[in-house]
């Protein structure tokens, strides 16, 4: 279970498991909703809703409009806020090897609080998206007995954002 923006932490943790009998979940940023306009997306869920394109030298999935203009993406987590995704992840999603999913801003914030309170760990807002998805998926039966969440970073850097949201 890894949060996925551009996909470097995600591909890093997935890599040793690709040949194993292990489910892989790429948790993208659902932002404030899965809506898009001609110019922007309220989310950054490229694997979930992007289309084939070329961005920054990569042939991959991209958030774009019908003319190929790149959409302004959005997420509470700056590290997930990207309109493209690594091509290796796009390939694994296309072949069905990994499951793209997403958590919303508000769900990530809740998960951030939970992990702080229950474990004394301050997770990065990026990583909080993965924690949030585990919380959701725990009740749907899509998870096995053992779940690995990649806590890709510390949340000290995000305290200002989180405190700001609380006001």
């Amino acid at each position, binding site marked *: 279970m890894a949060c996925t923006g551009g996909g470097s932490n995600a591909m890093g943790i997935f890599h040793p498991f690709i040949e194993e009998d292990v489910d892989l979940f790429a948790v993208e940023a659902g932002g404030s909703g899965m809506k898009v306009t001609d110019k922007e997306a309220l989310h950054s869920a490229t694997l979930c809703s992007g289309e084939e*394109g070329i*961005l920054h*030298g990569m042939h991959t999935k991209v958030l774009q409009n019908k003319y190929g203009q790149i959409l302004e993406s959005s997420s509470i987590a700056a590290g997930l806020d990207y309109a493209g995704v690594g091509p290796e992840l796009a390939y694994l999603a296309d072949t069905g090897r990994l499951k793209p999913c997403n958590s919303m801003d508000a769900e990530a914030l809740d998960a951030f609080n939970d992990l702080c309170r229950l474990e004394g760990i301050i997770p990065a807002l990026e990583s909080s998206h993965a924690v949030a998805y585990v919380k959701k998926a725990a009740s749907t039966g899509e998870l096995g007995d053992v779940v690995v969440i990649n806590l890709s970073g510390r949340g000290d850097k995000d305290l200002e954002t989180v405190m700001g949201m609380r006001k």
Partner: protein
Amino acid sequence: MKISDKFNELKKKKKGALIAYICAGDPSPDATKEYVTALVRGGADIIELGLPFSDPTADGPTIQAGIERALNGGMTPDVYFRTAGSLKVHIPLVVMTYYNIIFKRGLEKFVKDCAASGISGIIVPDLPPEESGELAGFCNKNDVDLIFLVAPTTTDERLKRILTEGKGFIYLVARLGVTGARADVAESTRALIKRVKTTTPKAVGFGISNGKQAAEIIRSGADGVIVGSAFVDIIASGKDVPARLEALAKDLKEGAAQG
């Protein structure tokens, strides 16, 4: 008009070419028609008409701002080809855009649209030659030139490939970094002009803004200069734009012609 015909014509007169870039639709499609006419009056030999892309990685702040004005003014690939097709100019037109715009439209359709609207060359700064085979195939079939860029950092191996496959002219990137007007001519620019040995015309861009620089570049062995940001700056000011575009084109053309 074919790009090679234009360069041959200038070669006979022993004159350097002025290639003028503006972004189509900046700030509106109608303004573009007026501005192109002004540039031609000033002496532009080739017009490079940008087709705006939201993430122009090769462009500096000046052209980025122009692209944004164009997108806000409603420029799309459909409007672009209509605008280009309605230009009544008798010099070559070249499109500069980024690969996702071409990819999304469909490579073949894009090239055919170019041919149908009088565009004789394509510049795609984010398409490396190694990945260009498919687009080059459609270009060759439709008699449209695929123009490649050479930077000071281009390896000898890649340069060799660009010189064999590049059509129209070779676009020499005068300096590292993005587009934007500068006052001087870098030593590395002269070195690059010397390093690139080919019978295909060589045009230098990135940072040229006045006639003195243009003359220096032509004197150093280039066949043309490409000027963008200096024109886009005038458009951004919104003041007396056609007359000032024409005056700057005249200054640059005089420089390129004496060089």
